[in-house]
């Protein structure tokens, strides 16, 4: 199976996934579409409940048994993930995909020395030199010492580097990293992200980062997809999206994050709470919290359209992108 150059590595179209909670069904994805191309870093940004983890994990069909596929399709590197049998899925995960999870200590087997776990991830019978080489590619000093160590003897940052080394061991085409630095200390987040980015660039693989940290991904991703209510509401190059958001939710997220405010300025939280969908949303899911909403927003489901170099799902995008950054309230 050779993918043509123009064909996306990951092609997710109109994906609908629900979770059966026993009493009712909650929609995690409400028609999410996303393409990931070769040799790029794409960040999926959203708050908890936005569906970003479901979307990321759906690429390898790594979903809990309560998850139900209700519509749409997922194609990863030529394999139709929704209909593939277990053997084909295993082969796909094994050969083409690499995963980095939020909590590195949970991803490692506590009873096994690092060297052995890395060897298993590499497959075959790699020699100690090959293992050490892989670990030093993930910028771990003293790989010999680390190979003899057990997971609990490593710091969080070191453990995450080991997990990253294991994820790239088989030269995957696609790396999926779910909040890869959220459990790490702020002072090393930047470095771990840099390592991840460098390894991705070296191998030519694509990287999908799931994160809620806008500031972090701004420095490490090529494109960003902002998720809200189970859909991708804005998707485009990081610079464009972050500097001139076209979706009011992206705008509100940027205004709510500490870090960009001037001294004495007050942060503006987004009023209300994110929606919990039980069926297809026939309006704009963000409308109840949106300052720019019009009757149309509550009556008609917006579809994705191109505007100013990105895709946006909003009836009022022109008003958002045209407006000056709203002035912040004076505080104190």
């Amino acid at each position, binding site marked *: 199976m050779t993918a043509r150059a123009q064909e996306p590595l990951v092609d997710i179209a109109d994906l609908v996934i629900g979770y059966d909670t026993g009493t009712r069904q909650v929609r995690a994805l409400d028609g999410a579409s996303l393409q990931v191309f070769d040799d790029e870093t794409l960040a999926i940004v959203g708050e908890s409940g936005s569906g970003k983890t479901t979307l990321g994990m759906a690429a390898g*069909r790594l979903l*809990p*048994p309560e998850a*139900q*596929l209700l519509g749409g399709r997922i194609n990863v590197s030529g394999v139709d993930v*929704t209909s593939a*049998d*277990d053997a084909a899925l295993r082969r796909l995960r094994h050969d083409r995909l690499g995963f980095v999870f939020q909590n590195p200590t*949970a991803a490692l087997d506590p009873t096994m020395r690092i060297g052995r776990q890395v060897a298993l991830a590499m497959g075959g019978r790699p020699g100690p030199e090959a293992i050490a080489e892989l670990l030093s590619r993930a910028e771990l000093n003293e790989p010999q010492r680390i190979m003899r160590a057990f997971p609990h003897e490593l710091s969080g940052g070191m453990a995450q580097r080991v997990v990253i080394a294991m994820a790239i061991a088989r030269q995957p085409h696609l790396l999926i990293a779910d909040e890869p630095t959220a459990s790490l200390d702020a002072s090393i987040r930047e470095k771990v992200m840099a390592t991840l980015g460098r390894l991705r660039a070296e191998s030519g693989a694509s990287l999908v980062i799931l994160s809620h940290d806008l500031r972090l991904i701004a420095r490490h991703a090529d494109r960003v997809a902002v998720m809200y209510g189970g859909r991708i509401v804005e998707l485009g190059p990081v610079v464009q999206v972050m500097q001139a958001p076209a979706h009011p939710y992206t705008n509100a997220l940027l205004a709510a994050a500490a870090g960009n405010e001037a001294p004495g300025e007050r942060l503006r939280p987004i009023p209300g709470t994110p929606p919990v969908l039980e069926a297809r949303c026939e309006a704009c899911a963000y409308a109840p919290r949106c300052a720019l909403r019009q009757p149309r927003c509550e009556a008609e489901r917006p579809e994705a359209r191109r505007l100013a170099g990105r895709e946006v799902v909003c009836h009022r995008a022109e008003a958002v992108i045209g407006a000056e950054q709203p002035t912040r309230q004076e505080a104190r």
Partner: protein
Amino acid sequence: MSGVRQIARRRLLGDGLTLFGALALGCLLFLGLFGPWLPLGDPLRIAAGPRLGAPSAQFLFGTDELGRDFLPRVVQGIRSTFLLSAIAVAITAVIGTLLGLAAGYLGRHTDQMIARGADILFAFPALVAGLLVAAVMGPGQASAITVISIATLPLFIRVVRSVTLGVAGRGFVTAAEVAGASTLRVMLVHLLPNVMGAVMVQLTYALSIGMIIESALSFLGLGVQPPDASLGSLLRQGSAYLTIAPWMVLTSGAVLSLAIMSVNLVGDAVRDALEPLKGRPLT
């Protein structure tokens, strides 16, 4: 999705087994609790039928070497095996939970002492303990209870201690300490309710271990004393006539296996119910 179907099948199978276990356990408990008042006949009446009579319409489980009806004897065996183990495990659970809480929360020397003590008990084979206790206290129900307690106490201490260690580091415990809550209050209000799930799971395991130990002791003649019966003493009684009257071993052995299996099945279901999502810590 084939994966989903697989999981569904496994669940249903699991549920079927659980249902079977729950039904079996329910029947056995009913027989054990109300056996003496059921119209099954007198377990102690000698020469109720022929000696070593095979199972028949009148004597479903046959008769023993003294001509006693074996069915009421098995029911009495269920009663003593269950009751004895349950009493022993209940006492042990209370003591073990308190010791585990103290070890996990107070730490330092208290922890050292309790954890070492549990290790020593754990390293002690139940059979050796049984012989020693029987030698000191004499054979009988009290020594059976003591031996079951010795064998299952470390189970409770260890599990409660390790869960406590996890819970004690959580924010709500620190917040209570900062608010000036006493050690006892933290242990009873904040820790105990959060280790109960783990205790419930241990209860069922301990109960099945207790039943095995009680049967083993009675089999060796160290537990329930004749003419009273326990499943273990019935097995021993039957083993003497294994070739000429195999129904005695078969019936009491089958009931004992069913009892232990049903307790374990229900225990697994309890554990699954308390831990709905894989990988979540038991709290």
